[in-house]
């Protein structure tokens, strides 16, 4: 199993632990991720809000770089990058007018033939849950988490083609496989405010607070995410939320790869568990006595 890997900007900065843990998990499972050389930013939300063509051209440039590596599929972890790459691909496949313009910009013909995958999809559908179970070193028994998917993994379904629109289950499936108990909660795909992190911080605080509250109410001890923006909003801003809304949440926000890494016996530090703002040590130590961070 060999894939072209597109980490995206966040995974090289605020979400370093996502990148670290993804690479570690992939390595442990024998999934080869080859970083696309000289990849560039996908443009994220600002691009599609400001310049439509740019929002297509940037992802396409990256896909073309991947295509040049050979016939790989692209794997990405960031939900926003995933959404942008998929959307660009969709346009290139279905909209001739935009395709021609974008081809002009990037200077190469491209008809959307390279497959864009999320690492979740690769783990569940290519590698397989059974296979994963066979590779576990230990099961993380007794941990209750809320699996949080956010907006861009499932919406819009005709573009993302990843998981169930209203009740996604890929992360839940993975968690169950490593012995973690996912709680049933209704906020799997609610919005955290994401791109407003800097600009409309108040909105982010409110929406993230609702999500934390719901997870807490349904009995989760932590939240598991697959998106760096969700993680940073819920983790980085948790203390501000506590202050503003007079709460005392203490919910570590994990990337799914981190917990899988633990179950594969990878050292917590290698998985970037030291980079969390809400420290997970207590929870993991108390539950499993294995993560010495």
């Amino acid at each position: 199993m060999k894939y072209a890997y597109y980490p995206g900007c966040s995974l090289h900065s605020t979400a370093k632990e996502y990148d670290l843990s993804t690479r570690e998990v992939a390595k442990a499972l024998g999934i080869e991720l080859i970083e696309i050389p000289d990849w560039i930013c996908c443009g994220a939300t600002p691009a599609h809000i400001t310049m439509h063509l740019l929002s297509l051209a940037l992802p396409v440039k990256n896909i073309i770089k991947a295509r040049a590596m050979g016939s790989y599929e692209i794997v990405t972890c960031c939900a926003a990058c995933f959404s942008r790459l998929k959307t660009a691909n969709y346009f290139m496949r279905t909209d001739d007018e935009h395709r021609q313009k974008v081809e002009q910009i990037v200077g190469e013909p491209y008809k959307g033939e390279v497959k864009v995958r999320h690492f979740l999809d690769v783990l569940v559908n290519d590698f397989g849950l059974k296979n994963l179970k066979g590779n576990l070193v230990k099961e993380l028994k007794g941990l209750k988490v809320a699996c949080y998917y956010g907006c861009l993994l499932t919406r819009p379904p005709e573009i993302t083609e990843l998981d169930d629109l209203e009740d996604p289950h890929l992360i839940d499936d993975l968690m169950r496989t490593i012995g973690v108990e996912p709680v049933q909660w209704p906020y799997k795909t609610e919005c955290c405010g994401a791109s407003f992190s800097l600009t409309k911080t108040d909105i982010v605080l409110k929406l993230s607070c609702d999500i934390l509250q719901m997870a807490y109410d349904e009995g989760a001890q932590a939240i598991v995410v697959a998106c760096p923006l969700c993680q940073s909003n819920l983790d980085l801003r948790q203390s501000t939320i506590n202050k503003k809304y007079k709460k005392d949440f203490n919910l570590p926000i994990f990337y799914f790869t981190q917990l899988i890494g633990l179950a594969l016996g990878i050292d917590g530090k290698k998985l970037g568990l030291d980079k969390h703002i809400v420290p997970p040590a207590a929870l993991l130590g108390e539950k499993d006595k294995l993560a010495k961070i």
Partner: protein
Amino acid sequence: MKWFISHETIRSPFLKTLEKDCGEKISHCYQCGKCSAGCPISYQMDYLPNQIIRMVQLGMEEQVLSSKTIWLCASCLTCTSRCPRQINVAEIMDYLRRRAYTKHMTPPGEIEVPLFNKIFLRNIELHGRLFELGLIGMFNLLSGKFFKDVALAPRMFLKRKIGLFPHKINNSKEVKEIFKKSGKLGRARRDKLWQPKLLFLNLSRKLIERIERLK
């Protein structure tokens, strides 16, 4: 609000170009309100999403482009994925923002989002990848919120979550090229980041706000 409806307003080029550019049939909307019902941010909006669509149907370009709503949309796509008439509401919001931006019609209280977008894109154009410290710093400086999130900064550095220097990639030329061509082909508005007048306006506005609050 009073709106004089006529032949011209109903068949305004606004509606036509919108339908052409986003490939969305606005007239399909039958105002069921499901978009507004599911929108996580409608509580902050001056018009609900369905009202924006209605106003577009009636050709109320100015009112729509100067609304807060279009800048409050988080592009979470909840509306799009649930619309029974298969209208891509989020895409329409994108379009409206782009149009408002090119027409210099951002509402006075809503400078952050367009400013952020501009800085973000300039940041990428410059470095190829996002340089987050640069982004935050520049944003705080230009939006007049100098000390925003400063409390979070030490922790971020400590955890090595934010680098002090931009990433080095060897293809900055290629990125600039993409920006240039996209701008040209898409006839997008691309102006200078440093606009002393705008900076001054922002600063004074913040100042006034602060004084108001003190009162």
